[in-house]
């Protein structure tokens, strides 16, 4: 074979070796491990069939963890998208002041989740926290925030929304700006009401953006970890334990590698299904262009 035939393969090889070693192969390794029992110390991995999956689906804890993850995801995605859309409609103006506000709402997105977690943990302190002072200002009773099973998961939702809503809003603004102006001119000529203009032009034209954000936010929220690990360690009494933290705990604290891998496969399937949606949609969008 001549160098010319080989050349493109040599060019893509470094990247593809990395992808195969650290992204593709680990998936298969994890699936294999999920059918074994292994405590990390013993040299033997015992084949146990689907025992890990049976244990997983019978576990009360796992059911709660799964439920927590779904609740967290639905709330975070719904709230952050709704608020972001409202903010985008409001802030989509060209004068400088709106640019400053856009920068402000975006800033949490580029800050490490470590900082965000520590900062909100401090503001949510039930005794000396700023948030209870704000509640007090409006004559509302103080909240136990992260320290009570009723409020801990919701507190994490608040942090998740605060972190991502600015990103979502700016993506919505980019979407709004790509809607052709003549559509609005035509609507104005027809004397369409503001609501009709929104429902008949803005919303449909924005639906690709909305769908993109829906998928991306859902996948990201499903993998929430940093806030859980730093702010609550899954507590109190498992009320904020979610999938990735659960896998991490079983792998690194309890050394039940097979069981943790089975939970990992469940996450893989969920993210995989959402990714297929994402790809279908992307293919469609490319097609229509």
């Amino acid at each position, binding site marked *: 074979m001549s160098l010319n035939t080989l050349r493109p393969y040599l060019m893509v090889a470094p990247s593809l070796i990395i*992808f195969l070693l650290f992204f593709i192969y680990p998936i298969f390794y994890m699936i294999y491990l999920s059918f074994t029992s292994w405590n990390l110390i013993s040299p033997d991995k015992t084949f146990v069939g689907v025992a890990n999956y049976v244990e997983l689906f019978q576990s009360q804890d796992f059911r709660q963890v799964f439920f927590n993850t779904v609740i967290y995801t639905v709330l975070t995605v719904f709230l952050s998208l709704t608020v972001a859309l409202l903010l985008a409609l409001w802030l989509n103006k060209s004068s400088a002041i709106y640019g400053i506000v856009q920068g402000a709402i975006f800033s949490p997105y580029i800050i490490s989740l470590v900082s965000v977690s520590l900062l909100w943990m401090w503001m949510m302190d039930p005794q000396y926290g700023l948030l209870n002072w704000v509640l007090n200002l409006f004559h509302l009773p103080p909240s136990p925030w992260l320290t009570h099973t009723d409020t801990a998961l919701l507190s994490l939702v608040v942090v998740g929304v605060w972190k991502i809503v600015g990103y979502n809003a700016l993506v919505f603004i980019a979407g709004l700006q790509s809607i052709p102006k003549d559509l609005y001119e035509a609507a104005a000529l027809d004397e369409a009401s503001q609501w009709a203009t929104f429902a008949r032009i803005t919303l449909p034209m924005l639906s690709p953006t909305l769908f993109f954000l829906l998928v991306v936010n859902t996948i990201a929220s499903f993998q929430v970890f940093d806030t859980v690990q730093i702010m609550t360690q899954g507590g109190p009494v498992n009320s904020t334990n979610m999938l990735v933290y659960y896998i991490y705990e079983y792998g690194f604290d309890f050394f039940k590698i097979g069981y943790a891998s089975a939970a990992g496969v469940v996450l893989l399937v969920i993210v995989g299904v959402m990714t297929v949606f994402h790809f279908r949609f992307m293919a469609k969008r490319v097609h229509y262009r």
Partner: protein
Amino acid sequence: MITVEKMLKIVEWTGLAVITLIFVFPFIWMMITALKSLPETVVFPPEWIPETWMWSNFKVAWSSGPFLRYFFNSLFVAVAILVLQILTMVPAAYAFSRYQFPGRGFLFGLTMAALMIPPQITFLPVFLQMSEWGFINSYIPLILPYAASAFGIFLLRQSFMQVPEELIEAARLDEASEWRIMWRIMVPMARPVLVTFGLFSFIYHWNDYFWPLVMTNSDAFRTLPIGIAMLKDAEGGIAWNIVMAGNMILVIPILIVFFVAQRQIIRAFVYSGVK
């Protein structure tokens, strides 16, 4: 005279101020807390201005662990990843955009698959692999899995596809090597995309907590986010003034970069996501 229009303007400006406050004030609160003495953090209602400004909190935070080491590790890992990513993604993007070869579609499909597989799924098997190879407690598990970027290849390929074919043909007639064409013609044309990607990659890895947390278990290789998060595990309860001082060390470089290159950073994160 106050007209309805003026009233609406006032309402809107108040609204804008409130929104800005919700997103900016937590950072100001971080700063205020970082300058308080410990007793001042445990009063309710909270005090807005510290009695004496405790700049020494930064020193306390910095010296409560090997923070110079953490800082160096963070910088080293983020820069090493970026350099390796550029070295691997430029040839890959060039091949995917400009060469016809059997298996191209399949290999690009693999790249896109890697783009869609998050570290939260692969961390356990990758950690096990790394410890089997004896690489835990080195920089290798922090850097090597990120030495190639599917996202970068994807972005750069699109930008390379827009370079006019005549330009490349002309260079080939001048007997420029493919290597030279790649780095001297393609890369300069794609500079905005590379800047965008560089900002994205650096900020992502500077901030990253999850991967270094999972892949390190000794201070020698821990990064800054890990060190900062460990500040709260101090004996005798959390000293919030010290934790917030540490937090500032992590946040300030990013906020400075954000102030300097706000437009580019927003473009890096927002538009690259949409495209």
